[in-house]
């Protein structure tokens, strides 16, 4: 697994091998598997992402009753042509909500990188696939790009809310989605790295403060934030806007910020939204037994 996006950029330039292929080759070397086998696994992951969106049920509510029916509301508004954001962003929002609601309702999802952030990457990828009529093959390549970025973040920082706060989950997912999206729109390794830097920079410092300790409030709606943020990071990148801080250093900054976060805002439900009067009230209603 790569530990630096700069390294991937250098290798793409030196060898002429694209970002996604470098990530695939590294994975195959480490785990002693064939590229064909790896490709099939990734295709399975992409299909599972697709299914996690298709299987949404608009009448389903989570056990706590806090989550349900929200993706359907955005769908309706989009169908009526009333969304301020327009159709593409509307689709991204709708998918992010639906997939993360499904997660809260104990349906099958792909943790990418985590269950709490499972709506971000598929919302962006499925929407751009529809918009640009891209093949599943191409989408699998973008998944390698996203996985490569996630791997670098994991090695330099963390992908867990308990260790690094929400920035490590929604932030990392957004960086992964942004890089994959730029790849799908023709970007090379430097553009991919740039988009992931822009995406994560905007989400640095995000606390993990789930109400009642559940992956519901604010997690579901933060998936919307992460997904939409990935699209804006890709647009900025493709417009030629460059992050002044390179991606690897942004990841290091995330690690640094995570270390400074108190335990109260790292998934323990002891601070932030979880301990607001309303958060406490909700939590008191939901106890086991």
């Amino acid at each position, binding site marked *: *697994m790569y530990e630096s996006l700069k390294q991937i950029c250098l290798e793409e330039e030196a060898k002429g091998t694209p970002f996604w292929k470098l*990530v695939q080759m590294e*994975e195959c070397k*480490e*785990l002693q598997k064939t590229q064909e086998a*790896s490709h099939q*696994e*990734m295709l*399975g*992951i992409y299909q*599972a992402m697709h299914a996690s969106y298709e299987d949404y049920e608009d009448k389903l509510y*989570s*056990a*706590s009753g806090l989550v349900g029916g929200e993706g359907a509301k955005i769908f309706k508004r989009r169908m009526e042509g009333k969304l301020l954001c327009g159709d593409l962003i509307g689709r991204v929002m709708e998918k992010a909500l639906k997939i993360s609601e*499904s*997660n*809260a*309702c*104990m*349906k*099958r*999802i*792909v*943790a*990418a*990188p*985590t*269950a*709490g952030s*499972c709506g971000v*990457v598929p919302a962006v990828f499925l929407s751009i696939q529809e918009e640009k009529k891209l093949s599943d093959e191409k989408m699998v390549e973008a*998944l*390698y790009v*996203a*996985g*490569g970025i*996630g*791997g670098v973040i*994991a*090695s330099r920082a963390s*992908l*867990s809310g*308990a*260790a690094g706060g929400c920035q490590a989950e929604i932030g990392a997912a957004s960086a*992964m989605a942004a890089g994959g999206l730029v790849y799908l729109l023709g970007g090379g390794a430097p553009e991919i790295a740039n988009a992931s830097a822009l995406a994560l920079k905007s989400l640095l410092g995000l606390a993990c403060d789930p109400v*009642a*300790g*559940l*992956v*519901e409030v604010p997690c579901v709606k933060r998936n919307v934030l992460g997904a939409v943020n990935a699209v804006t990071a890709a647009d900025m990148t493709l417009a030629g806007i460059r992050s002044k801080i390179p991606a690897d250093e942004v990841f290091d900054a995330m690690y640094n910020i995570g270390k400074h976060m108190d335990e109260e805002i790292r998934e323990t*439900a002891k601070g932030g939204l979880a301990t607001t009067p309303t958060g406490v009230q909700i939590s008191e209603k*939901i*106890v*086991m*037994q």
Partner: protein
Amino acid sequence: MNLLDIVGPVMVGPSSSHTAGAVKIGLVSRKLMGEKITNADIYFHGSFLSTGKGHGTDRAILAGLLGYRVDDPVIPHSFEAAEKAGLSYRIHGIDLGEVHPNSVKMLLTGESGKELEIVAASIGGGRIQICELDGLTANFSGDYPTLIVHNVDQPGHVTEVTSMLAHKSVNIATMQLYRKSRGGDAVMVIECDQEVPEEAIRWLAHLEGIVKVTYLSIAGD
């Protein structure tokens, strides 16, 4: 960590630690039992206790005990599945003291009457640790074929076990030894790179001074 840990796993939500990890604890317990489980007393501790209902931790651990995997759509319906499979269960709260916040203790009975007491923790990202077996310390992840030998604390048992493994060409990845008291109950926890053959485990179980042999096979994972 590999790529499929980052864009994956495919799992039933909502939480990798409280749901997927709980399924895995159940599944590893089922494998350690080596037979169908008919009775389970489940004691949730800490965050498993306080947020378990909302995370489906109770359903998840039952699904695992029934042999389902982390991505099986049966998980949310495992209460019904347990009833159908003849698994009777009771869920309790407990304070296990200074342990990982996502910990659970289980008292299990198999169809042959075999009993197993297990304490396990879900340590993040769906990874787990088995902390205690039958009241004795045991630290293993369930990712490797694992041999757990309870024996009387006397000279020679480690040699018996390791010679047998060498003879069967099984390489030891990690090995831990614990004992309760000098000359009392002792345990060996051995994580291996290859599966240990069944006949070797049966042979071991009949040796004098060996109290109990438990084996986790990961074949078919």
